[in-house]
């Protein structure tokens, strides 16, 4: 597969004036010429092929947004080389911008007081989209995202979910080859998240748009991106298929068994007991092959089981687990 994004040893450091604590420290800071260097991205290399959907995952401050900003030409890498569609993004920012779409989950690109359609019209002019292509794309995107009902409403009157759909549609109006999304589902309710995920997955599958997505939400990755790049503290932790990560870490699902009364100590081979609150017992299922049915079969009848809850590990837990098992998982 042809690489359309290639990062080799990309590093981004920010130079910040040294800060001191307390009021005296603030005054000292005014006079001080000392600086500290913040390493936001540290020697990261990867290649992304045309048509891929890649989740860029990591906790707050991991360097996700900084990497997106470098790929979109907003920031200049301190070291290393970065090519997007064969160009250096910051050096050819305008040309690069014509072939990419960018959605910021927490920053709107729509005009707040005007109908959505007006922002789209401005986008058409900025990107010089031929009238016919614009109309076809708008019609198609409206149908896919169900936007007809609010296309002529001022942006300020839209719900967050409607607005996010409009933001994504706008980013696709000029047929970009790559769509960058920085936390597109942040703050959305379950229904809106689902709609956005389904749409992005469809856009990737049917229109062949390469998707690079940063998120905290593992479900975004699961539904949209077969490939995962995981970072923390600016460093690359994992680059590979989500399946591979799950096979290594997915075993750590949390199982809670609630009984009518305390059945006493329970030991299972399919799940490890991690805490016992009497009538409520918490297990970890460490083998991905083990299903809930396997556990319940082993448990058998006669314990007065009242309720069962199985929780997938959240992103923080995956990363924590990843850290613990890191030497095993670092890609070769």
């Amino acid at each position, binding site marked *: 597969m042809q690489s359309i994004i290639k990062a080799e040893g990309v590093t981004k450091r920010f130079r910040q004036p040294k800060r001191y604590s307390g009021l005296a420290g603030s005054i000292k800071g005014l006079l001080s010429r000392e600086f500290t260097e913040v390493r936001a991205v540290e020697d990261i290399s990867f290649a992304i092929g045309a048509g891929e959907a890649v989740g860029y995952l990591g906790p707050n401050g991991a360097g996700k947004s900084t990497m997106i900003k470098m790929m979109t030409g907003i*920031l200049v890498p301190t070291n290393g080389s970065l090519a997007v569609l064969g160009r250096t993004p910051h050096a050819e920012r305008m040309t690069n911008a014509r072939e990419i779409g960018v959605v910021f989950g927490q*920053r709107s*690109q729509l005009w*707040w*007081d005007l109908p959505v359609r*007006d922002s789209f019209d401005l986008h058409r002019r*900025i990107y*010089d989209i031929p009238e016919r292509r614009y109309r076809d794309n708008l019609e198609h995107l409206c149908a896919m995202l169900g936007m007809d009902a609010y296309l002529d409403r001022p942006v300020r009157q839209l719900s967050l979910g409607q607005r996010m759909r409009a933001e994504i549609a706008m980013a696709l109006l000029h047929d970009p080859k790559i769509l960058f999304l920085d936390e597109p589902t942040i703050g959305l309710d379950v229904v809106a998240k689902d709609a956005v995920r389904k749409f992005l997955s469809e856009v990737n599958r049917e229109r062949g748009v390469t998707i690079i997505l940063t998120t905290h939400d593992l479900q975004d990755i699961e539904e949209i991106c077969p490939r995962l790049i995981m970072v923390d503290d600016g460093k690359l932790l994992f680059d590979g298929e989500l399946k591979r990560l799950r096979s290594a870490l997915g075993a750590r699902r949390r199982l809670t068994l609630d009984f009518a009364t305390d059945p006493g100590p329970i030991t299972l081979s399919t799940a490890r007991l991690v805490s016992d609150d009497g009538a409520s017992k918490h297990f970890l299922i460490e083998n991905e092959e083990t299903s809930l049915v396997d556990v319940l079969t082993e448990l058998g009848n006669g314990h007065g089981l009242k309720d069962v809850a199985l929780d997938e590990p959240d992103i923080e837990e995956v990363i924590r687990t990843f850290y613990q098992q890191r030497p095993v998982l670092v890609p070769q």
Partner: protein
Amino acid sequence: MVATLRVLPFLVHMHVRSMMEYRGGMILGWVAMAFSYASVYTAIALIVLRFEQIGGWNWAEVALLLAFHLLGYSLGASFSFVQFRVMEDLVQRGNFDTLLVKPISPWAYIAFSGFNIGYVGHVVLAVGLMGWALSQTAVEWTLGLALYLLGALASSAMITAAILTMVGATALVWVRSRHLYWIYFGFWELARYPLNIFPAVIQAVMVTVMPLAFMSYVPVAVLLGKQVPLLGASAGPLALLAGPVTVLVAMAYWRFCMRNYQGAGG
């Protein structure tokens, strides 16, 4: 480039439509601004009429100076002041990033998407005052002098837009830059009076590092045939050159700040 030029009028159109969503507030703003200028000009008029002259300039000449100052400022500030005053907010909230992912000059986008129609009131006031002031002065009009006046006015607008752009651009590197407007408006106030009433140091600053003397005093003095301190006979051409030169400096500074833009995190 041509595509960008086609977009700019539409950006103004979008901004005007946005403003029209809050007509009441917009009209109140105009009224408040009219009162503000009226009170300042009344105070200056009272001083000049009381002492008959200020630095050798009578009230009609000072009125011409004020009108030129206001007109040059309004034309330049309509493309820059309100827009670049919020630059530090754009940087702090990350909204400047959203401009950098569009195939358009971020300066052009900011300047035209915030084109301030509120300055229409300033322009009407300035043109009216200028008309009255010119009728009271004995300027011998020629085509060359009329063209000079228009050129000097364009230069004055360029100085305003360029300096306000530079103050805004500073936010790209320092994140906060709004306090610099205090310095600008300090000299802007001084530029409402004949330059020769100030000490030599201030005169020197206002024709070099903060060239606001070229906004109104220098061209109006040339128009009225008055001696210009420090510049002498070169005052006329320098008033025409000051605008383009300040714009070139502002362009270089804008590029420098863009190269050093780090965002504000997040």
